[in-house]
């Protein structure tokens, strides 16, 4: 069978994020991902949606955040779309190893309490794209399915 696709929209309110996270979790376990992979994908979705709310919309409530889940034979893709301020071009090109650098005891006072979201997404997902048309911004995230999992997904029920 072909791809399966489901489209969601929530309003830009952090209280709505757990809901869409739990839906993603459900869809991932249906897609045959194991518990750890399911958590990882839910986490990336939550990070991406939270960023749209906090950064693209600067915390303003009531604005649309749209998520598409697309399950293809060999991959699970989701897109997060907002209509707010675009991300700076180089945010996705930062060096992950710099953000997740070895932390030594003495550096605790220098640890940041934020700035890990995009690096987590890049470490977990197999592919990450961002595009902005001026009107809307889309982050596309992909995770490849292991061959036996994609076989499982091929079954329609």
């Amino acid at each position, binding site marked *: 069978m072909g791809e399966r696709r489901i489209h969601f929209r929530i309003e830009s309110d952090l209280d709505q994020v757990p809901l869409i*996270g739990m839906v993603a979790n459900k869809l991932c376990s249906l897609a045959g991902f194991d518990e*750890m992979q399911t958590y990882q994908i839910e986490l990336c979705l939550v*990070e991406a949606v939270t960023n749209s709310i906090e950064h693209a919309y600067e915390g303003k409530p009531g604005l649309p955040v749209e998520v598409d889940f697309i399950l293809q034979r060999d991959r699970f893709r989701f897109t997060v779309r907002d209509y707010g301020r675009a991300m700076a071009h180089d945010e996705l090109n930062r060096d992950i190893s710099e953000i997740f650098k070895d932390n030594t005891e003495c550096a605790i006072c220098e640890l940041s309490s934020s700035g890990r979201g995009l690096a987590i997404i890049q470490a977990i997902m197999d592919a990450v794209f961002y595009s902005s048309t001026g009107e809307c911004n889309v982050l596309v995230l992909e995770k490849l399915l292991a061959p036996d999992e994609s076989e499982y997904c091929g079954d329609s029920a």
Partner: protein
Amino acid sequence: MDVTVEDKGKVQVLSVNGRLDSSSAKKFKAAFEPLAKTGHVCFVINLSDVEFIDSAGLGVMVSALRKVNKKGGDVKLAEPRDSVRMLLELTRLHQVFDIYDGLSDAVEAFA
């Protein structure tokens, strides 16, 4: 998400359940900050009932650690699930937090 506080004398145990994320992080702060203000510096965060944590959840734990570390205290983590442990390792925060499989081990480590 809820946070319950247990006073173990020197050590304060904060047990968190559910989702520790950007929508619940403020609840964690609301439980932690009054304790830090009244001079407590030794904390254990019991993660056994945390099903989901994201970067904002890590963020509040890091700020708690930073705050008490300056005063010679510590925040230790107890009983994280595999998924939470994975995230701590991915972000290298397992090098910063002492992590214990058992809650009582974490509390006793302050002795």
